[in-house]
């Protein structure tokens, strides 16, 4: 049952091939058996899942069930789930039971989806390997010695191992796309403002965006249809009509213009990754597309700009964690200052503290112009590169990551080396564009992902482009043997 896509599950539930309770129990059993090896879940909501499954079965029998009703889903532990622990992968929120549901959670609950649990993640979404979590590292199901990527490493890992048929994620500098690539699953980060951030614990407010990880683009389309839309409770939510994401999946790619940025195919790109990406482009040519070389000349500025903007915004967003109203409070504080310093010093992990400090520095008096203001100017230049490119091409394709998954422990000692693994994904967040990653092959035994970047609000096009490739290839159906 775990090999089914969401659309197959939907048909199965409707035709009574199985019930939601059976489907849910199947996944809960798999989680119990396999998750200890992966550490993909922080919290498994077994009782709640069965309750929701039974409710879904009632609706299915009554004929009032929507397409996704009764299908299990995992939520990244960054989304507030009412009555359920929401830790954001941090000691700071280890004791936090969310008093409300995030909009994303509400929407999936209303659609009748069954919450399996909250997935592991890099602490406060800061990381590219899921090694900074308070709850321990997550393993890549394709190779247990490898990282799954981050920060949505738990979501990617559980979908790849089919311990959930789909999972939500968030992406600030690549945190959906990069783990999707490293774990061989499909991931989508929509246009900035497409999905509500209400109840999605904030890291960098001008970059964060919620999305999903699934086995297929068709499944992603079904889920995005539920997630996307204006929300008055998110002041950065965009009031733009939501396209019918499943309607355009079958469109032919004849005449599609694909831009290949030369800056992304230069030195630093692993040879096996390049080969898999080139093979995918050949497949697209066979589907009728034309591949055109383009230039995004300010690409090299993206990582430096990001490591000013994101830490700056995170230092502001994480200032709410002060031991007063929620979260960790240190023992026996001497005075208020001591309470702030030690609650935060003890509650946050090293990477989070590093980024808060970088952010504090670049925003401090005397440095704001040289760093933050300058970064915002360069951010405009990076965005303009894309705007120019989309006048010539329909979509842009790149490798998602410069290499396949690296080994656990390999990059933890040098933050800058870790940061460079997001070189291809970061520009997309800076520009606010939608991006996907789909599996297109392997480098040795570790998956390789292709990134597809679209123009603003072109999620329908991205999903169509991904779906057509998945009709003529089968990378997306592969499951690591040990979890098959």
């Amino acid at each position, binding site marked *: 049952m775990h090999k089914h896509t969401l659309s197959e599950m939907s048909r199965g539930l409707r035709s009574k091939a199985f019930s939601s309770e059976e489907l849910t129990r199947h996944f809960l059993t798999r989680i119990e058996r396999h998750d200890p090896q992966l550490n993909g879940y922080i919290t498994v909501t077994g009782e709640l899942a069965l309750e929701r499954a039974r409710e879904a079965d009632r609706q299915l029998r009554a004929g009032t069930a929507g397409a996704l009703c009764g299908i299990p889903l995992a939520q990244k532990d960054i989304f507030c789930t009412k009555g359920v622990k929401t830790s954001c992968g941090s000691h700071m929120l280890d004791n936090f039971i969310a008093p*409300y549901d995030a909009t994303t959670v509400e929407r999936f609950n209303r659609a009748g989806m069954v919450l399996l649990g909250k997935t592991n993640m890099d602490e406060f979404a800061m990381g590219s390997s899921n090694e900074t979590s308070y709850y321990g590292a997550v393993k890549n199901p394709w190779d247990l010695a490898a990282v799954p990527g981050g920060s949505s490493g738990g979501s990617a890992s559980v979908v790849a191992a089919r311990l959930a048929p789909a999972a939500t994620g968030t992406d600030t500098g690549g945190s959906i796309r990069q783990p999707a690539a490293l774990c061989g699953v499909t991931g989508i980060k929509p246009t900035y403002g497409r999905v509500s951030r209400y109840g999605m614990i904030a890291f960098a407010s001008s970059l964060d965006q919620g999305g999903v990880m699934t086995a297929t683009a068709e499944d992603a389309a079904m889920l995005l249809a539920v997630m996307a839309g204006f929300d008055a409770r998110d002041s950065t939510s965009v009031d733009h009509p939501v396209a019918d994401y499943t309607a355009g999946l079958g469109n032919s790619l004849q005449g599609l213009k694909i831009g290949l940025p030369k800056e992304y195919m230069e030195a630093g790109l692993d040879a096996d990754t390049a080969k898999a990406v080139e093979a995918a482009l050949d497949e697209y040519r066979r589907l009728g597309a034309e591949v055109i070389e383009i230039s995004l000349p300010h690409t090299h500025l993206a990582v430096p700009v990001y490591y000013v903007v994101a830490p700056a915004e995170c230092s502001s967003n994480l200032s709410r964690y002060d031991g007063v*109203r929620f979260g960790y409070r240190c023992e026996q504080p001497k005075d208020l200052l001591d309470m702030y*310093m030690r609650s*935060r010093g003890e509650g946050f992990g090293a990477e989070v503290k590093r980024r808060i400090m970088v952010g504090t520095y670049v925003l401090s008096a005397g440095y704001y112009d040289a760093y933050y203001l300058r970064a915002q100017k*360069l951010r405009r230049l990076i965005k303009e590169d894309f705007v120019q490119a989309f006048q010539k091409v329909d979509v842009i394709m790149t490798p998602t990551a410069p290499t396949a998954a690296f080994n656990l422990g390999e990059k933890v000692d040098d933050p800058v080396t870790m940061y460079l693994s997001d070189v291809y994904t970061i520009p997309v967040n800076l520009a606010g*564009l939608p991006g996907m990653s789909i599996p297109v092959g392997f480098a040795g035994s570790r998956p390789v992902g292709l990134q597809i970047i679209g123009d603003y609000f072109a999620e329908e096009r991205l999903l169509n482009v991904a779906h057509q490739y998945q009709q003529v290839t089968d990378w997306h159906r592969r499951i690591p043997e040990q979890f098959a």
Partner: protein
Amino acid sequence: MLDKTQVERIAHLARLAVDEQDIPGYMRDLSNILALVEQMNTVDSAGVVPMAHPLEGKQRLRKDQVTEVDEREILQTVAPRVEAGLYLVPKVIE
């Protein structure tokens, strides 16, 4: 290269207690990150308008009417120390 005093000052501004023994590590890591960031200076950005929001969004405003309900009780269920609806902290005023 950031020195010890700078790191201590930043940590204080950020209200982060840092162990004495961890300071050299932070000096090194923060300096390396700032070196990465220095690459911004390889480009001339004179005359470029800073971009705060990818879609040039403007803050949405709403009517000045009370729409929120009092949820103090449920919101305080997650507080470390609460009494009579108040959040308790160590004494501030001498």
